[in-house]
């Protein structure tokens, strides 16, 4: 049983290569943009949420986004992807700091700032999904982009 598991895990896709960076990047962008959307949603409806609830959503979203972008920054992008990698990293960093701003506002119960934050979160979310689409559109095989 164990042997079978080991052999099978050797076949699992995603060994480090060009494709792997692409897959990891897509996953991290997806995670971060999910966090952004959740906080956007929560702030939009902040009058329907309890303070601690909103705060927990904001804190957990910030944590999740931080984890996701740290994970990606630990993956060495292959040479031809270097330019794209920088774009992704900077977009993720922006999103992360925006989520931090959101969390700070939420913890201060600074509801005047929410409307502006929602707008910025929406813009960031759109930017992330554009990047996501572009990376997804990269050729699936290992030919150079």
């Amino acid at each position, binding site marked *: 049983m164990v042997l079978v598991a080991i052999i*099978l895990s050797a076949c*699992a896709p995603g060994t480090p290569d060009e494709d792997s960076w692409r897959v990891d990047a897509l996953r991290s962008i997806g995670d971060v943009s*999910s966090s952004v959307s959740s906080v956007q949603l929560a702030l939009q409806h902040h009058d*329907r*949420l309890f303070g601690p*609830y909103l*705060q*927990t959503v904001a804190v957990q979203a910030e944590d999740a986004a931080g984890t996701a972008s740290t994970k990606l920054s630990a993956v060495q992008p292959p040479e031809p992807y270097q330019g794209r990698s920088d774009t992704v990293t900077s977009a993720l960093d922006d999103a992360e700091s925006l989520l931090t701003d959101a969390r700070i506002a939420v913890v201060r119960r600074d509801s005047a700032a929410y409307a502006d934050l929602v707008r910025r979160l929406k813009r960031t979310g759109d930017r992330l999904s554009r990047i996501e689409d572009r990376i997804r559109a990269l050729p699936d095989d290992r030919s150079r982009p």
Partner: protein
Amino acid sequence: MKKLLNVALGVLTAIGGFVDIGDLVTNAQVGARFGLSLAWVTLLGVVGIIVFAEMSGRIAAVSGRATFDLVRERLGPAMGMANLLGSMGVTLLTYVAEIGGVALAFQLICGVDYLLLFPFVGALVWLVLWRAKFSVIENLFGLLGLALIVFVVALLKLGPDWSQLGHSAVSFQPPKPEAWSTWAYYAVALFGAAMTPYEVFFFSSGGVEEKWGVKDIGVMRTNVLLGFPLGGVLSVAIAACTYVVFNPLSASVDTLGQVGLPVAIALGKIGLAIALLGFVAATFGAACETGLSTGYSIAQYFGWQWGKFVRTDVAARFHLVLLLSTVIALGVLATGIDPVQVTEASVVFSALALPLTYFPILVVANDRDYMGEHVNGRVLNVLAMFFMVVLTVVALAAIPLMIWTRMGA
């Protein structure tokens, strides 16, 4: 009222099995990513667990033997021990996750980090397992867990495009851009979440705790036929709610806080408060269910006195197991591991362990020596054999799929 309380065991079992912390999040995750295209798995799981729980409940009512007694009698000590280790592993993992889940639910209420809360939650769960009467546990948490019906109300209030939801439910294929393998992995996870071994350990042992006899078979069937479909409805409602709210944003759902958002959006603070009550009750109920199940399965394998129908000192070893399980669970949580991910892994392993628990029950439910005239009928046997095959296929597919899709990432 008495009649109503009679079905509390089934309701609590089902809520613990279908909408515990892992399922709350898994259902929401599946809803956001796959819409209702996996709702058929929940339906299949509901029918499967009904068949399984009905057989084991009937055996408990007729012969007074709970599930793990029969596992050892029919599989022998060696295979029984292997099954015990596997099932204990799964149940303990789930217990860890549930205690963490209660703490996560409290975090949503008071805003304090769950890592500061879980030791108190663990102590509280243990205190309940030690002191509270069995009927208090099942009635209190079973009935409070019904608060999760708020997800059904929220879905109606959200006013989704029903034809689109219906279309998604009968599409039987992953929506773009999801891969078939990921879809299949979540199918296995959802099935494993619906049919966990500890549900049956708990349900049949609960029957013995309640001193079911032959005349209670009707009550037992009502429990099964009301409780599990209710659990299924709640799972699908949660999936549908998150689909409606999160899918347009193409956002995934990973935390309990996100699961509650659709209810807040639809019903405001009152709805959210009810959902939070439901979260706490369901996870606390599931924690009691899994905690007791660790004690039930070990005690039943070794023949020790178990159960809450005797004084705690009469079942001392059973209560010692409960205490140790709680300590181990707290130790695991103290590593800072994410409780939600723990259950996601445990449902897949439970799919793996299930056939070895199901088979002895199927054999004994047909054995006139135990059951007299209450053996399985022909129709039930056809259904039961169908699930024997399904369970075997799922068990064989579980680990390869988990590795291949890197846990559905």
